């Protein structure tokens, strides 16, 4: 029965959809988390209130893309979900707990005299969530032990120098996104501060991208051949060049105090790293063990969901875009002591 097998083309489509959902999560909740990570370096009072005010109307919708990413893997590639989630159990739980603290901090810090406590929760939760996401990325890239249809490794397999590197990289990169978002959405002293943070976070992120890019091809032979051997090299060679161009443009944009260009260029940097990850990992769903076609759900489920995605995703993008447009403009704060 053909319905019992995944459709090869739909599998590719779904891999694209999931990748896109995760990417949208990263570039939107990325700046939410980034603002949380930089929170202790923002002045209590007006500066922190302004920064958090820029994301209050949109952060919840941004975070929903994480549920679509994870839920999407569950729905479209259930075998991969079943193998990977236990494999990254500890960082996954840490991420969920971090997101809980980050999420409630928005509401709680407005209702309490102990603002410092919930500012700390906002910072701690955001940083833990970002670091955990990086750990998960690294753990997946480096491969996990699989036996049949199950994870077969230990409780600590996810922890390695590589995953620690990716963890730190994500923290730096989200900080960069957050700073660039603030450059765009704030003015005066808050914006000045954001420019300074963007410079430091930019340097850290570029170093991180370089380090991860150098380390990844040596994790396994597939990655190596995608990057350094034909025919993969024809796709992969432009990526470092484009990253270099984006980096130079970014540095110049910061120097001339452009307001929107830094954010756009930071997004481009993220896009290029995502493409790089895709180049490395394709066609694995669980690197080294399960391909996307092996993990994919059955064809009738793929098409059943695709109908919904086709109709609903444009609608979602529409009203999400509307919300961003509605809350456009500089965010101010006057006189809060």
């Amino acid at each position, binding site marked *: 029965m053909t319905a019992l097998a995944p459709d090869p083309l739909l599998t590719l489509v779904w891999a694209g959809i999931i990748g896109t959902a995760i990417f949208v999560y990263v570039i939107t909740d990325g700046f939410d988390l980034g603002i949380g990570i930089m929170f202790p370096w923002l002045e209590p009072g007006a500066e922190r209130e302004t920064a958090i005010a820029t994301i209050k109307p949109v952060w*919840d919708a941004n975070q929903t893309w994480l*549920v679509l990413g994870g839920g999407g893997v*569950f729905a479209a590639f*259930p075998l991969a*979900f079943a193998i990977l989630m*236990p494999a990254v159990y500890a960082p996954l739980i840490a991420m969920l707990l971090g997101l809980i603290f980050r999420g409630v901090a928005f509401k709680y*810090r407005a209702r309490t005299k102990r603002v410092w406590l919930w500012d700390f929760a906002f910072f701690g939760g955001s940083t833990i969530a970002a670091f955990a996401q990086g750990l998960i990325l690294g753990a997946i890239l480096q491969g996990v032990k699989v036996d049949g249809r199950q994870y077969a490794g230990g409780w600590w397999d996810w922890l390695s120098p590589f995953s620690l590197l990716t963890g730190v990289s994500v923290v730096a990169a989200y900080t960069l996104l957050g700073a660039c978002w603030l450059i765009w959405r704030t003015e005066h002293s808050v914006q000045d501060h954001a420019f300074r943070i963007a410079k430091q976070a930019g340097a850290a992120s570029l170093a991180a991208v370089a380090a991860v890019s150098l380390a990844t091809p040596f994790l396994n032979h597939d990655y190596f051949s995608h990057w350094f051997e034909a025919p993969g090299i024809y796709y992969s060679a432009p990526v470092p060049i484009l990253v270099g161009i984006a980096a130079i443009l970014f540095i110049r944009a910061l120097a001339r105090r452009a307001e929107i260009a830094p954010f756009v260029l930071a997004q481009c940097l993220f896009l290029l790293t995502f493409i790089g990850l895709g180049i490395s990992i394709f066609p694995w769903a669980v690197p080294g063990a399960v391909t996307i076609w092996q993990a994919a759900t059955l064809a009738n489920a793929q098409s*059943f969901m695709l109908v919904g995605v086709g109709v609903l995703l444009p609608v*979602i993008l529409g009203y999400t875009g509307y919300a961003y447009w509605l809350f456009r403009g500089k965010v101010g704060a006057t006189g*809060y002591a």
Partner: protein
Amino acid sequence: MFDDPSALALARFQFAFTVSFHFIFPAFSIGLASYLAVLEGLWLKTGRDVYLQLYRYWLKIFAIAFGMGVVSGIVMAYQFGSNWSAFSDRAGPVIGPLMAYEILSAFFLESGFLGVMLFGLDRVGKKLHFLATCLVAVGTTISAFWIIAVNSWMQTPAGFGIADNGQFFATDWLAVVFNPSMPYRLVHTLLGAYLTTALVVGAVGAYHLLKDRQSGRAGQPATRIMFAMAIAMVAVTPPLQVLAGHEHGVNTLEHQPAKVAAMEGHYESHDHAAPLILFGLPDDEAQVMRHRIEIPGLASLVLKHDIDAPTTGLDKVAPENRARVAFPFYAFRVMVGLGMLMLALGLWGAWAAWRGRLFDTPWLHRLAVALGPAGFIAVLAGWITTETGRQPFTIFGLMRTAESASPLAAPAVAASLIAFVVVYFFVFGVGTSFILKLMRSEPGPAGPAPSPDDAAEVGSLPPDAPFGFKLA
């Protein structure tokens, strides 16, 4: 198969703990979102400021409750994979798409328009803001639809086949979604949510009526209006819920007789006139109900509308397929008992209103305050009944809980369980205390200037107010 009983028990307890905490929040948000839509609609229609006061009052509480629901909900989505990976692998092809639809059609809708609802009062016209409120309410209901479809399919699977590799697959998506128990469980859950909210609103109203009476102050009109609205809901909804619950029970009897046997505490089958066991101490070892207090014949009458009808007991179920009786048995009685109290509150309130003494009956108000949390306890008891009654299966009759778990060692699950317990009690305890603090102030006209508390949370401010937005 991975087979450590303590890891399994820990994983089960962790899921039960996290899902119970999680469900408290949507149980409240679903009803409250709809209530906010009603309030805003009434404000738009009548122009009376009291409805806007009530809207703003409950909006602050809604924001906190909704936020707690979202963060605890993300835990659930990922926990399918992390702790129940075998289930996710095998049932994923059927359940995954339903969850995907929940995310696409409900979660984005709620979270997308929540921002407009909370922060857009000064940025969009009144009608558009009302639309946002309505869409958030619709989103919560759509969310309930899909998750009930998922859970109902686990109880009464339909429209599926099983492949050679053990994975379930759908043969008929309509049959999967609208499986035999789904409509009953959806209605029952939604009514439970509305009732939960009505009881909370009524309790807050009653609390302020009592406080004003005690201090000799004339209360706010908003308090009276919200109390009256709540009593109206509590008068109307429990009878509907009793009916919905009964129909749900009859449906469960048809498709999951073993669960009904456990709920009723019927270890043994009866040829006719099965007794309704009001209370007893279940003994699973001996398969006997000790110290029972029962009403003869009533179970046959309630379950099959015929006092001479036979009933199936656990003796007709293979021993390895029997649920532990204590959980569904006690939980069901808690739920029904509270339901009776809610009925009583509604009837009394309706009678007091008819006599024109709704606001002058302190004992009614005290009962309303006492029953404030009753909805939460009742919905949790109901969920415990249905989920523990489904054991030892995750997919009733087809996949056992013992074969559904992830290959995680017990220390790993123990660590995450402890982490969840500590974090949840702390974080959601704090959130609940903030909500209670908000409830301790009476709804009324806004003060001369918005306080930083108000400003930081609900964004209806002139552009130069603290934290205000300025258009570039």
